[in-house]
């Protein structure tokens, strides 16, 4: 602020215009140095407004930072200095016609006031919307003229107490909306008449207000305390507000003067804090309103009734002037329209787990209660809402998936969230990703004799395993146990291998076990196969029956040092055994021919033992079953021309003891 040391700005006076004018007359006439046409500037700091362009002139008020002046000319006056961010000095002054849109004449009773120049900045755009509040007092109003005068909203009295309906309410509502003005209604509270029946007053208001989408939030006009004490009046106000909200889903704004709120409602912040954030404050003839309840819990004023005697085209006599603290009334508009949005938009949950979405209802500030539901749930998913009948701005959707029994299938599911209120339906989509929480299903290891391989002190046996999982198999692990000893990890060719060939010794019991890890990292239990042993039956075994002409021959390279052979067409050898696999061991060479192989009486294949060079203990055929059983394998020579010989060196079976 500026001014000589020790100078105190006197209090503002509405009366006493004459005295102020006399003071003004004591100063030299201001000399214009520049003219302006209603230029608006905002104060950069607290700035004194004076009755003349001098620091010794009467200080009419101290304008707060941000106060907007409308100046008409720049005049030369007394020297001044001020600290406003930094030190400023000068001797030019703005001739101020209005502060925050209010004429200084109406505020201070002077035709023009003065503020030191250089302490202001340009105002880009008006920060407010202007409007009026009306009642039957004004009678008929020419709303098109009022609208043309720049007014943008009308707050009309609708009801008072129980039983009083403002006779002009319907006309005002219709006329204002017809002229394109935003309109709403207020109820003049009478706790003095109905100290125990705030609900009755609320019902009377709701029954008569006819609030429809497009109107602004209605208001509760508090200015008659009655004989209720502070606590009882707070209860009364809360009951009225809650009743209206319950009935029409609208949180009304509260009209009160700072004096009333402090004196009769103990300056409570409870309403501002608990769902009633909109204050229509009544504070007349001041540059800026005093906002009770700790600046309405730091929300400030939303509407401000700043004068009770404005002269507005279209209105006969005085009319209350109001201001909206903003330029967009949409947030104050009651609309059935709303939006619904989940957060997060997508969530991931393992089978058997739960996840939650916050469902936000954007009500454009006011709307009716909204019913929320969710659909398109995948199998095995249950949904719960913290509130399905949403009267506030959010609810929580919790989805629980299933693991046991029939698990929720792995996958990504778009869920439809539907919100219904005020006859409107709004939908949105949230995505639920159900991830794999079930370990792979492993098929236990099985054993297979295979060919062609060479028989030695051992025989190569293929062990196979597999697993399935919706998210795929990432890797396998295999262990081996010998003669019921300790399990030992087996090195696999690759982590994804599903078979392994290892030489198994005769007379030894083996067991293999496998497990799998799926793409989601779930690891199965170890899944053991059956015990297995390889059994060698030499050609001399009593289990081998020969037909036709067979000869025995010693051969150092043969299994057991000997073998049998035949050259005649139809000579056969039949081996009867119990097992799950069988292999025929023979000799290959340039003089060997072919034989037909039958298994359990069924022809399987013709095997040629012919080779360019001789090789002994060759597994030339093998056959496998899924389980152990009694079987027969029969080898029949076909009498291959020129080299008809076939051999039986041994048979090998795989048993599952």
């Amino acid at each position, binding site marked *: 602020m500026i001014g000589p040391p020790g100078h105190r700005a006197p*209090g503002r006076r509405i*009366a006493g215009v004459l005295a102020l004018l006399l003071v003004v007359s004591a100063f030299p006439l201001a000399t214009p140095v520049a003219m302006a046409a209603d230029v608006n500037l905002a104060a950069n700091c607290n700035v004194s407004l004076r009755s003349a362009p001098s620091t010794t002139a009467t200080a009419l008020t101290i304008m707060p930072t941000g106060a907007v002046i409308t100046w008409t000319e720049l005049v030369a006056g007394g020297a001044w200095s001020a600290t406003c961010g930094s030190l400023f000095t000068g001797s030019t002054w703005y001739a101020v016609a209005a502060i925050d849109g209010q004429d200084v004449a109406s505020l201070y009773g002077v035709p023009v006031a003065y503020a030191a120049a250089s302490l202001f900045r340009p105002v880009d755009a008006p920060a407010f919307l202007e409007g009026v509040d009306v009642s039957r*007092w004004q009678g008929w109003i020419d709303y098109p003229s009022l609208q043309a005068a720049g007014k943008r909203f009308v707050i009309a009295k609708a009801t008072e107490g129980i039983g009083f309906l403002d006779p002009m309410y319907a006309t005002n509502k219709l006329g204002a909306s017809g002229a394109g003005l935003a309109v709403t209604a207020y109820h003049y509270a009478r706790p003095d008449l109905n100290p125990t029946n705030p609900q009755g007053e609320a019902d009377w208001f709701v029954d008569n207000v006819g609030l429809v989408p497009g109107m602004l939030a209605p208001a509760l006009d508090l200015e008659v305390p009655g004989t209720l004490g502070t606590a009882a009046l707070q209860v009364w106000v809360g009951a009225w507000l809650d009743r209206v909200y319950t009935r029409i889903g609208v949180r009304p704004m509260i009209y009160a003067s700072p004096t009333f709120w402090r004196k009769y409602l103990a300056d409570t912040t409870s309403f501002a804090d608990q769902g009633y954030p909109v204050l229509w404050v009544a504070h007349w003839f001041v540059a800026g309103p005093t906002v009770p309840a700790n600046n309405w819990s730091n929300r400030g004023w939303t509407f401000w009734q700043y004068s*009770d005697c404005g002269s507005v085209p279209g209105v006969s006599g005085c009319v209350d002037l109001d201001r909206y603290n903003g330029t967009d009334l949409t947030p104050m508009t009651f609309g059935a329209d709303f939006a619904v949005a989940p957060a997060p938009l997508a969530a991931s949950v393992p089978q058997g787990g739960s996840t939650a979405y916050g469902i936000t209802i954007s009500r454009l500030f006011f709307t009716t209660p909204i019913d929320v539901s969710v659909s398109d749930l995948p199998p095995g998913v249950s949904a719960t809402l913290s509130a399905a009948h949403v009267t506030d701005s959010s609810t929580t959707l919790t989805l629980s998936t299933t693991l046991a029994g029939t698990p929720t299938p792995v996958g990504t599911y778009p869920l439809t969230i539907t919100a219904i209120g005020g006859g409107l339906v709004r939908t949105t989509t949230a995505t639920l990703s159900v991830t794999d929480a079930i370990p792979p299903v492993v098929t236990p290891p099985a054993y297979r004799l295979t060919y062609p391989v060479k028989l030695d002190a051992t025989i190569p046996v293929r062990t196979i395993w597999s697993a399935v999982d919706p998210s795929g198999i990432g890797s396998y692990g295999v262990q081996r146990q010998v003669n019921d000893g300790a399990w030992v990890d087996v090195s696999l060719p690759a982590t994804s291998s599903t078979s392994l060939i290892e030489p198994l010794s005769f007379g030894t019991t083996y067991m293999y076990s496998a497990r799998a890890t799926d793409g989601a990292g779930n690891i199965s239990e170890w899944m053991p196969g059956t015990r297995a042993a390889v059994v060698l039956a030499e050609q001399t075994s009593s289990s081998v029956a020969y037909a036709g002409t067979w000869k025995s021959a010693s051969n150092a390279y043969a299994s057991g040092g000997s073998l049998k052979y035949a050259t005649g067409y139809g000579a056969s050898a039949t081996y009867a055994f119990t097992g799950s696999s069988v292999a025929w061991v023979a000799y290959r060479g340039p003089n060997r021919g072919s034989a037909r192989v039958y298994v359990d009486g069924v022809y399987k294949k013709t095997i040629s033992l012919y080779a360019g060079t001789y090789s002994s203990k060759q597994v030339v055929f093998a056959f496998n079953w899924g389980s152990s059983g009694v079987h027969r394998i029969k080898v029949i020579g076909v009498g291959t021309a020129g080299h008809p010989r076939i051999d039986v060196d041994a048979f090998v079976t795989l048993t599952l003891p």
Partner: protein
Amino acid sequence: MTQTSPSPQGTPGPSGTALLPTVVATGGEPTASAPAESPGPCQPAFMAARVTAWDGAAGHRIASVELVNTGPGPCSMFAGARVQLMDGSGYILIDGAPPAASAVLVVAAGGVLTTVVQDGNYCGPAPVPPVTVAIIFPDGLGRVVASPVSAGDVSGVPPCMGEAGSAGDIEMQPWSP
């Protein structure tokens, strides 16, 4: 309530001075048309007023007021008047401003006029009940103090919406027949 007194009702006014159209307030017997010559000004001594009800409006109190011509004949009065909010001790709580020129009404004997008076921003000390409205007649004729709603009524006192010491306001809508 008190009424100041002066010349009898029904005397043609000095001015015959209806600058604006004349309308007629009727009593028990309807008057078909305006008289050719306006009667004299209504005298407070022959006018009775009462506040029939108070209601409120966003910082204001609104009085419904009736004015009856109790004199023997018709009289003329301006449709607008200066009004005051007065307490039971006769103290003027809020003093209104004289109205701009308005239409002249002719009030038949027994005729009733009605209006609404709105006041606002009383920041003074607590008034003495009852609180009512006074209608000031022009040209120093006096005033008519309306009967209050009840002996203890103070419901017409508006709340203080400005700073302490700020002036209140009160005005009326034109009288309606």
